[in-house]
């Protein structure tokens, strides 16, 4: 309604609040410490991450990923405390990813969170991973009320805020866009260091041909598994060669051409469904969060669409768009300051946790 001003229910803190956030829903293990000061400012005190990187051609499996997290979590937490210059005694709460994500890795992190909470008598705050991405994106970029495109290896959603919920406007009907890109990177044996998505982006820059791929937006949603199958099928085509240089004149199909074609197609689809959501709610801002949000080509394409609509795109750098602990601390501390605490008996993790299940009490 015009003229209605909603005051944020989150009051300025009367003293500084400090929270530790622990993240481990996929192959990235993160610990971050955030401070909300009495002047209303938010400061990242530390953001430490260690990634489980598999050899080329291999993805990461739950048991191995959980083992990696168990091996690294103590040193990651200690580093984050040291860099922030705080001790566990100084924390107001311990935040951890409750879900969604992979079961065994999530549980490993939750066990440590619970143990620390009991050892130091600190409250626990279970956080939704997707809400963590959104809140960190809002904090870093200052975007007021954007349409959020959340794109990662595990999730692909178009989200808009309304009445204390992050509503899902559109999403993938099958696999996430990051999963599609990562699985194709495996097929062509790209390195997973620092991440398969980064290496696909670099490879795509060398591509010279746009090959026809199915374009599968489905209204507000999109489907990606068919595109992956078709792109993989091209590698069995007799024109495919791993060794030849990409060239627009010749008939050969190179991995670079396929990376380029795959990115252009899926990113165009993402831009379309984001634009559809923007048209629905009359928004001009787009905030891209999640690991795939690091991709500069996606940011560029989204920027072209946003500027045509008289708006702009917000994105964060790899410290914040790739899974990290600080986003869990941020979302957790906002929740904690509104009075929300997760009792110990409810600190189990869950692989399915919808973004719109969270009551966003800290916004009007």
């Amino acid at each position, binding site marked *: 309604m015009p003229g209605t001003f909603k005051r944020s229910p989150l009051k300025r803190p009367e003293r500084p609040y400090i929270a530790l956030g622990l993240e481990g829903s996929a192959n990235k293990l993160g610990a971050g410490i955030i401070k909300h000061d009495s002047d209303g400012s938010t400061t990242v005190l530390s953001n430490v991450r260690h990634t489980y990187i598999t050899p080329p051609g291999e993805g990461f499996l739950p048991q191995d990923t959980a083992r990696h997290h*168990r091996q690294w979590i*103590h040193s990651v937490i200690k580093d984050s405390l040291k860099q922030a210059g705080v001790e566990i*005694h100084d924390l107001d709460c311990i935040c951890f990813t409750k879900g969604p994500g992979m079961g065994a890795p999530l549980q490993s992190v939750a*066990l*440590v969170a619970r*143990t620390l909470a*009991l*050892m*130091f008598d600190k409250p626990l705050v279970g956080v939704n991973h997707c809400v963590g991405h959104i809140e960190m994106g809002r904090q870093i970029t200052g975007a007021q009320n954007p349409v959020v495109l959340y794109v990662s290896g595990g999730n692909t959603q178009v989200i808009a805020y309304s009445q204390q919920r992050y509503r899902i406007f559109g999403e993938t009907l099958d696999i996430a866009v990051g999963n599609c890109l990562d699985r194709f990177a495996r097929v062509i044996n790209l390195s997973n260091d620092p991440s398969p998505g980064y290496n696909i982006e670099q490879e795509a820059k060398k591509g010279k041909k746009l090959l026809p791929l199915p374009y599968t937006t489905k209204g507000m949603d999109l489907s990606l598994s068919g595109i992956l199958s078709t792109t993989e099928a091209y590698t069995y085509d007799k024109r495919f060669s791993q060794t030849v240089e990409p060239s627009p004149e010749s008939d050969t199909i190179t991995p670079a051409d396929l990376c380029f074609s795959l990115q252009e197609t899926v990113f165009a689809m993402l831009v379309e469904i984001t634009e559809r959501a923007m048209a629905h709610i009359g928004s001009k801002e787009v905030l891209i969060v999640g690991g795939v949000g690091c991709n500069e080509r996606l940011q560029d394409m989204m920027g072209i669409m946003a500027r045509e609509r008289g708006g702009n795109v917000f994105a964060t750098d790899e410290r914040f768009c790739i899974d990290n602990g600080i986003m869990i601390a941020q979302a957790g501390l906002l929740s904690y300051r509104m009075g929300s605490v997760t009792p110990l008996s409810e600190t*189990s993790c869950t692989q399915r946790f919808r973004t719109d299940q969270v009551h966003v009490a800290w916004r009007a």
Partner: protein
Amino acid sequence: MSEPTWHTVTVTIPLLSEEHARIAKQVLDVDRELQPHAVKRVLEVQGNNLIAKLSTLTIRLARLSTNAFLENIDLIVHTLDEFGTQ
């Protein structure tokens, strides 16, 4: 119909103190077993010891649940060690 036979494994983990054993029990008790009809886990604190009694319907489940329990208690003990002196 014959009664199902249960395979049992009892594991005793000595910790540094009764308080540590209680913390470990509280942390582990939060999560249910993935197949609660086929795997029963009961934890008990006796002095400084955490005692886990696992009853399973198959030998394979006995191996899996014991392995999972040991991995988890190892993680908790490491956490108590690494941060206990702070």
